């Protein structure tokens, strides 16, 4: 007996136009990297360690040997970053991967808890060369579909000053509150309190992103040092890290770094994340020892980026909801 009311719930959520666009994009990406000598890899979706980022909530599952009842926790990856860095440290050379990533507590017009990432790492690349390659890939994918003008490359600080009228690195929280008020976000103080990172996230997503020019890609680089994720500190400027984010039509599409290769610094960031998690009463995942050991062994100098393919497909097909490019979004999975 059918459990759905209409009986049509088994049908795909998206049309064949979106399915074909996805197939074409996957084929084009593979061609793009073959020509450039970047090797495709696969790493596990199930992992013994999860990321420590307090804003990411991994799905957990249990691994059992036959007949076992206790078992051990395995996480569904929130990104393939740690495993790919272990490959890089082992001498893989430049690599890319197209895989599923899973993030719990993320569902909306632009979020499905299971989504497709394109992630790649280029040995010897800095942020500038990485931006060049991302732009070349966008040009290849959008060729004949949509005319993309040259991307705008702008520092986080410059963009913030231009579009929000405040300095993300220097302004006091009181100045952030005034900025929020000017932009009709009086509730910001109650939400962000004394947390500078939450202030930056709120002002960026609510004030800056909606003002980004439609139809143009933006590379926003030099993120504040308080939002480092896994990026290197910028040599000669302690206030920022070598992190870049890609936006198109105001939508966040990707996040890249000149990759942090220092094992001690990486462990410090894990510990800082875990401190935030402890204070917030969030689960405390184990630190990925194998990643730390790989960094200690030696990660070649490289830059890498992850791009959300479902969102990219939304922009290629003119969709305003991620379910319009997924065969079976979480509501139908």
């Amino acid at each position, binding site marked *: 007996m059918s459990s759905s009311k209409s009986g049509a719930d088994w049908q795909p959520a998206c049309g064949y136009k979106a399915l074909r666009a996805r197939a074409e994009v996957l084929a084009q990406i593979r061609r793009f990297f073959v020509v450039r000598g970047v090797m495709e890899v696969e790493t596990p979706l199930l992992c013994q360690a999860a990321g420590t980022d307090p804003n990411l909530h991994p799905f957990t599952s249990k691994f059992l040997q036959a007949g076992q009842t206790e078992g051990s926790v395995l996480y569904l990856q929130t990104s393939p970053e740690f495993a790919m860095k272990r490959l890089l440290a082992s001498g893989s050379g430049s690599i890319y991967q197209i895989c599923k990533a899973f993030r719990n*507590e993320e569902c909306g017009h632009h979020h499905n808890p299971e989504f497709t990432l394109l992630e790649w790492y280029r040995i010897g690349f800095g942020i500038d060369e990485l931006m060049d390659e991302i732009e070349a890939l966008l040009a290849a994918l959008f060729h004949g579909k949509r005319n993309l003008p040259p991307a705008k490359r702008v520092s986080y600080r410059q963009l913030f000053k231009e579009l929000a009228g405040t300095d993300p690195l220097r302004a006091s929280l009181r100045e952030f509150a005034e900025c929020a008020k000017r932009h009709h976000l009086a*509730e910001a103080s109650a939400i962000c309190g004394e947390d500078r990172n939450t202030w930056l996230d709120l002002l960026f997503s*609510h004030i800056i992103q909606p003002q980004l020019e439609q139809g143009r890609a933006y590379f926003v680089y030099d993120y504040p040092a308080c939002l480092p994720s896994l990026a290197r500190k910028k040599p000669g400027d302690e206030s920022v890290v070598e992190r870049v984010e890609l936006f198109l039509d105001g939508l966040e599409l990707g996040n890249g770094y000149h990759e942090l290769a220092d094992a001690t610094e990486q462990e410090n960031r894990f510990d800082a994340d875990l401190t935030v998690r402890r204070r917030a009463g969030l689960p405390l995942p184990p630190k990925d020892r194998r990643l730390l050991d790989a960094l200690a062994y030696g990660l070649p100098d490289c830059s890498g980026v992850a791009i959300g393919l479902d969102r990219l497909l939304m922009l290629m097909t003119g969709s305003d909801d991620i379910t319009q490019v997924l065969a079976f979004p979480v509501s139908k999975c």
Partner: protein
Amino acid sequence: MAFISTSDFKNGLKVLLDNEPAVILENEFVKPGKGQAFNRVKFRFLKTGRVLERTLKSGDTLESADVADMDMQFLYYDGEVWHFMQPESFEQYTADANAVADARKWLKEQDVCIVTLYNGAPITVTPPNSVVLTITETDPGVRGDTSGGGGKPATLETGAVVRVPLFVQTGEVIKVDTRTGEYISRVK
């Protein structure tokens, strides 16, 4: 009192915002890839109709509002307040001018309206989508003109003024769309 988390927000949910009852119209999940999650929510205040957008941190809660829509018969206006009755229980309610607002010009005794109760008291009154009312006054139309083009104002028994075709006369009964205030047809 029940508190409702952003994760359970649905369109149509009634909550208290700044201590006033409001209905959720839209709820958008906003989250930077590596950042804090927010919900950008569009609300309409039930008393004033004002629409406003407000951001909450994902996981934050709002108190649910004790709001219910009920079909009620309009009984009479006593010059100060409007009296309604719930037809099954015969329970009577009074609504003031703030609650009745623009609906007043469509209210005819015996008609069934939707009365929105907040903590048991009426806060808004929604008239039926169409009402049947008698024209109390309109200029005589130009004889022979049956095209209906142009039209003329007509005052109805409730005081409402609507545009009607020229051939419609005082004393006739017409049907009006209360959402647009437009004439629909004559009623025989």
